[in-house]
């Protein structure tokens, strides 16, 4: 009896790790099978940054001006990856029937989804390190490594995945949210303050931009990582407080929408239909 209980406890403790490794395993295999596409996309992302930087700076970007832009751009890359994963990924898996197989798992779908999200985050982190590293080397950009940036980054990504869950839930029900995903990805690129700080936008646009995922995170991240501000000072000026609230709202609402999408998809029989 004690043995059985200990085995069960061990399994319960090990299960999230197994799920996470399993999802990473799948992601890496699938990414490798699309390696040509992956390399092309990576190059394109690099060129896009250089192109936009030249355009925004009137043809003469300075490395010190490009650091904030690159920080924002790499955060946007996480957003693009997460949004693609949750909307396009779910749509493709609905078509191939692998989503139904996932939902036939005895493990909670929340655990599987969390495993997928963390795996997606790890893979996108690897890509960001690769793209960011190449750009920093080629363009002479320096982004200092500050541990105080880590909680800000985690908060930003939390809100971002909340938003991705929201799109994932919508994909389960409406299927054709491709255009919406693309719109959101592009909107985030131009409105998250990567290339044009939100303070320089008209008030109405700034308000809208600040409501989007990643905008507030990028703003606080820059101030902590590049301007060397402490966490206390960004907390005291309210920007970190707003980031915490913003990310929590996105996560709660996104997760709620995903659960709603699951319920509706089960009720209407949409998990395996496109």
């Amino acid at each position, binding site marked *: 009896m004690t043995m059985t209980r200990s085995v069960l406890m061990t399994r319960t403790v090990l299960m999230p790790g197994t799920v996470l490794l399993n999802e990473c*395993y799948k992601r890496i295999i699938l990414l490798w099978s699309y390696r040509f596409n992956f390399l092309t996309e990576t190059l394109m992302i690099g060129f896009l940054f250089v192109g936009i930087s030249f355009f925004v700076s009137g043809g003469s970007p300075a490395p010190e001006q490009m650091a904030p832009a690159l920080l924002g751009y790499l955060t946007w890359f996480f957003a693009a990856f997460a949004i693609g994963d949750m909307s396009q990924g779910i749509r493709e898996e609905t078509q191939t029937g692998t989503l139904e197989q*996932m939902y036939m798992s005895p493990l909670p779908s929340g655990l599987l989804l969390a495993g997928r999200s963390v795996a997606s985050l790890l893979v996108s982190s690897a890509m960001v390190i690769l793209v960011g590293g190449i750009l920093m080397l080629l363009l002479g950009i320096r982004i200092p490594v500050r541990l105080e940036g880590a909680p800000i980054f985690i908060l930003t990504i939390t809100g971002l995945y909340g938003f991705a869950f929201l799109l994932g839930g919508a994909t389960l029900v409406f299927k054709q949210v491709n255009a919406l995903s693309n719109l959101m990805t592009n909107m985030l690129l131009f409105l998250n303050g990567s290339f044009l700080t939100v303070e320089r936008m008209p008030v109405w646009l700034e308000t809208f931009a600040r409501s989007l995922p990643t905008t507030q995170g990028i703003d606080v991240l820059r101030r902590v990582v590049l301007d060397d501000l402490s966490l206390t000072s960004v907390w005291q000026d309210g920007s970190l407080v707003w980031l915490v609230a913003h990310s929590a709202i996105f996560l709660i609402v996104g997760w709620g929408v995903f659960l709603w999408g699951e319920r509706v998809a089960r009720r209407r029989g949409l998990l395996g239909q496109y």
Partner: protein
Amino acid sequence: MKAAIEIESLSKIFRSRGGDDIEAVSRLDLTVEPGQVFGFLGSNGAGKTTTIKMACGLVQPTTGTVRLNGFDIRRQRGQAMQQIGSVLEGTRNVYWRMNAWQNLLYFGRIKGVTSGKELKARAEQLLRELDLWERRKDPVGEYSRGMQQKVAIAAALIADPPIVLLDEPTLGLDVQASRTVRDWITQLSAERGKTVVLTTHQLDMAESLCDRVAIMSRGQLLAHRPTSELLDLFRREFYKIRVRGGIRPGELKMIPGFTASRENGHTVLSGEVSADVTVFDLVEQVQGAGMDLIGISPAEPNLEEIFIELVERAELGPAQDSAMELDASHSRNISETGG
């Protein structure tokens, strides 16, 4: 012993965009005993796949319950899901970009197998049994359709579930691949004691594999019986008489209830006789009509004929539950449906 699958008052109503309700499954009651091969038959849109998906927890029933080895699919989802593996119709079920080995390991972990050693041993055993071992490192997308289906079946079995749901498992397969899958279904039940639920349009396959069949039409159950019992119920005094050459209309009238057709230059008379008529009486009638008799043989009804008859009858009037309805129909001539 607990039933492998217990379905009680299961209904599913889909609401269409126009506001109309479509009742895909209507108050279904069904029990599948452990170790049986159970055939779920019905035309397209009969409600088979919806029922299977409700049993897998993929579609939420409007009313009713499904229990898998005693575990309620809604209240004890985790335990219920450990009881089944399934291959669903019309989809890939596995990742075609991954190879067979990778797919089995991935789905094994998703289905809760935590021991890597156990998982690898099981994956190897399945791949060897299905003749996929040599090509285990090739992406599934490069396999033939039959091999891809085998990988999907192996993935369904990777966690060794006691119940296997196969929705049209031989759809689109060539004869050889279809035979392999059929042999495997037999083996799963006979040698490993698995309960196999099978939906198929291939009624000859259902007849040869299934211990029990349920026939559905428009979401309702028309029959639910052991296959042999269903065939017995429709077995009548039905004969085929083969005579040399052609016959004249007047000669046919001398054998009432029979219809004639041509086959390889001979005439085949098919028809049902009443219980008090013997084969000898038939021989006398044929010879008395001046026909050159080659042979007389009893014609057995097959599942396809029974299926067509039941579905046609259901389309004419409201579907009724199996037993009484089938018994009452015993005397009906099935020659009209192609016997």
